[in-house]
């Protein structure tokens, strides 16, 4: 068990005294610096319009990253983040598409949403009952889903009826996107869960030391299943938001989610060995991630290089955490 040696209250989730950890404050500061630098470099960057339109990306990245983070928090990981999203997208297209079933969004969306908890439950059960490593289970299932979506869709995108565009494209008062509202709600609920509820605490205890948690009366198998169910929910939420925003359901949705989910979750301070999660940190991670993408545009770096930047970012975030840990030594608080 190696984890940063400092107690980072809000991130550990067990803490209730500090609302924002030192690490998350650092992220907020970093995001601020990035924004100032970018608005200096490109004068029309910091307009109200860019700010709120870009916030949709932030909301979307938060969902994708939470999908990974809830699994990391119990000490697992989930490689199906994007694949489940892609299956959900195809299902959405099939159920809602004009040439397809043409169901009303009010019927189709809840049905599609079910894919999340169902697949998550399946992964969790395979991991805990058949005792197969989460890595292998989710790796195999990822390919199962990817094959399914290609087979079913034949690679064609479906159109999403305009009656469902409001979720992704709409906003309150013309400036506060619904997507951002949803993200803020998720942020609040998950923070509350990990901080204050028995379930959340038990999820974290499982990630901290599963053996000790089980011997303390926690059904750790159930916690793993719950984590994967939550993960599935976040994946389909991301998929629904993305489809509604783009106005179509493209089967290749989700192909780049896996790397995003790790990058944003890790920048946001999610522990790789379990037990550390900060929804607020992940939200900040999503903002920073978007800002960095934006800065690539400003720096005129070819979009094709974006994965290189992403991979390097993950390593950089981990190294920065290492360094913090090193300089903080065993000292408490931050």
């Amino acid at each position, binding site marked *: *068990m190696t*984890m940063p040696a400092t*107690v980072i*209250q809000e991130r*550990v989730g*067990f*803490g*209730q*005294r500090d609302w924002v950890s030192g690490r998350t404050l650092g992220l907020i500061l970093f995001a601020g610096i990035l924004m100032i630098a970018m608005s200096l470099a490109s004068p029309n960057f910091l307009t109200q319009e860019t700010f709120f339109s870009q916030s949709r990306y932030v909301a979307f990245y938060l969902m994708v990253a939470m999908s990974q983070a809830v699994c990391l928090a119990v000490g697992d990981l989930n490689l199906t983040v994007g694949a489940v999203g892609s299956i959900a997208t195809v299902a959405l297209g099939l159920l809602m598409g004009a040439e397809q079933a043409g169901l009303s969004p009010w019927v189709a969306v809840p049905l599609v949403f079910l894919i999340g908890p169902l697949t998550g439950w399946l992964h969790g059960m395979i991991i805990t009952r058949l005792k197969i490593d989460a890595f292998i289970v989710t790796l195999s299932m990822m390919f199962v889903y990817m094959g399914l979506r290609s087979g079913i869709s034949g690679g064609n995108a479906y159109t999403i009826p305009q009656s469902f565009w409001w979720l992704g494209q709409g906003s309150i008062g013309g400036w506060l996107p619904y997507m951002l509202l949803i993200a803020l709600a998720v942020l609040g609920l998950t923070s*509350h869960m990990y901080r*204050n*509820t*028995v379930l959340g*605490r*038990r999820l*974290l*205890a499982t990630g*901290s*030391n599963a*053996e*000790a*948690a*089980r*011997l*303390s*009366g*926690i*059904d750790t198998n159930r916690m793993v299943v719950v984590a994967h169910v939550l993960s599935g929910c976040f994946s389909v939420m991301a998929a629904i938001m993305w489809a509604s925003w783009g106005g179509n359901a493209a089967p290749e949705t989700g192909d780049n989610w896996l790397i995003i989910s790790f990058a944003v979750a890790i920048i946001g301070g999610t522990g790789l060995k379990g*037990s550390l999660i900060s929804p607020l940190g992940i939200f900040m991670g999503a903002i920073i991630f978007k800002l960095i993408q934006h800065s690539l545009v400003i720096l005129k770096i070819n979009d094709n290089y974006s994965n290189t930047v992403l991979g390097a970012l993950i390593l950089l975030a981990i190294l920065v955490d290492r360094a913090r840990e090193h300089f903080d030594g*065993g000292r*408490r608080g931050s």
Partner: protein
Amino acid sequence: MLKLRHISKSFPGVRALDDVSLEFRAGEIHGLIGENGAGKSTAIKIITGIYQPDRGEIVLEGEPVRFADFRDSQRRGIGIVHQELQVIPDASVAENIMIDKLVTRGAGRVDWDVTFRVAREHMARVGLDAPPDRLVRGLSAAQKQLIQIAKALSAKAKLLLLDEPTSSLTEHEARRLFALLRELRDQGTAIGFVSHKLDEVLALCDRISVLRDGKFVGSRENLSARDPAASGSNPIRPAELVSMMLGRECNDDHLGQLSPDWNTEVLRVENVVRLGKVEGVSLVLHRGEILGCYGLVGSGRTELARILIGEDRMDSGRITIRGEPVTIRSVGESLYRHRMGYVSENRKEEGLLLEDPVRTNLAVAVWPRIRRAIARCINADRERAVAADQVNALQIRTPGIEQRVRHLSGGNQQKVSIGKWLAADCDILIIDEPTVGVDVGAKQQIHELIWNLAARQGKSILLISSDLPELVRLVNRLLVFRQRRIVGEVRDIDTKKKSYAEVSREIAPLFE
């Protein structure tokens, strides 16, 4: 063959070996026994060059030597078979034996014919009956052990050390291993056999040396190992070995006299069986009693505890708690329904959330009880109060309830893992080896804590320990576990103020 002369070795804060001299002779099986922490493994690590002694010398065939590292000792004829079977599961039997001496011909190509032939010879020598090209993964523990022995012998080991070799073997397999070791001995190999199982050491070893607290206590010849008929004139008595192993300076003080309520049974265990682990164990625990469970590792004590808390299933038997027959399926049930808690012997691996604060560790079992009625979330004030209460009551030394448990001392960590169950209002506690790895002062405090729980708060405690002085200090009665059964009971320890020596005299015959 090999002598250790006045070897001392210290680690920060511990003197692991203190002026220890031992001799391993060709054609003799030398048993090394002692409790956990007696210095056995340090001695082995010095012989195999993993540690360098601070003082003293190693004499190999009459010449003082210094092993630079593990490989160096192997080159000079020291072979070791580890407790954890160190084999490469996905390589063949032959490769495992020959891994460090594969026969090559030209350009570094392995000559498999020769390699297999040589491997086969070594396999025949140890009686390993398996195809040399079989993958090791599918072999039994006993076969893996033979591979290690073959490997050591193929390196021309003149001294073969075995560290707790039978811990993963069945009795039958162990007997076969012993036969092989005797054969090797008769061929002139020096054998060092490290164990804490007295029975097997007595059955096998020609000479038995006892280590205790890093010191050499004594060495005895054991004639009956070669000739069972000689036991009459045998200079060795098992009882003597037990007291040599345990007889540290211990004070015989009892903490006081417990006053259990003999009319109130809180836990009754009848004929509990779990195949290969526990064979027909029965006991009764009363309110306010500390019941000692004495025995060695694997004698069935921890195995029984795991059944009681629902971690393992029993194959047959009956458990009654506070007068009601129960089936316990999970730790959650034993905790929330029967208010029974288990303090694990491996507190770091199984007892504590090391990276989390003291508060979390103390409150983890009460979260559902301190939930706010309507909001369904944990009442943070009550959680802090629960933790602070235990910190005060158990005098846990910590800068605060937010301190990470990792940073506490061993003794205070142990208090936290006991406090968790007290916070959860458990009144039956199963405490497993509570003072392993804690220093003397903390040991005293933990003893007082456990005693007070029973004497003042009427908790019922099943105290599992291999530390006999500890049990004598604390308990009224103790049960002796041996080979998965209860083989005896010592009563009235506190009421008749039995001394440690008296109790160990009573126990010794049970190990004959």
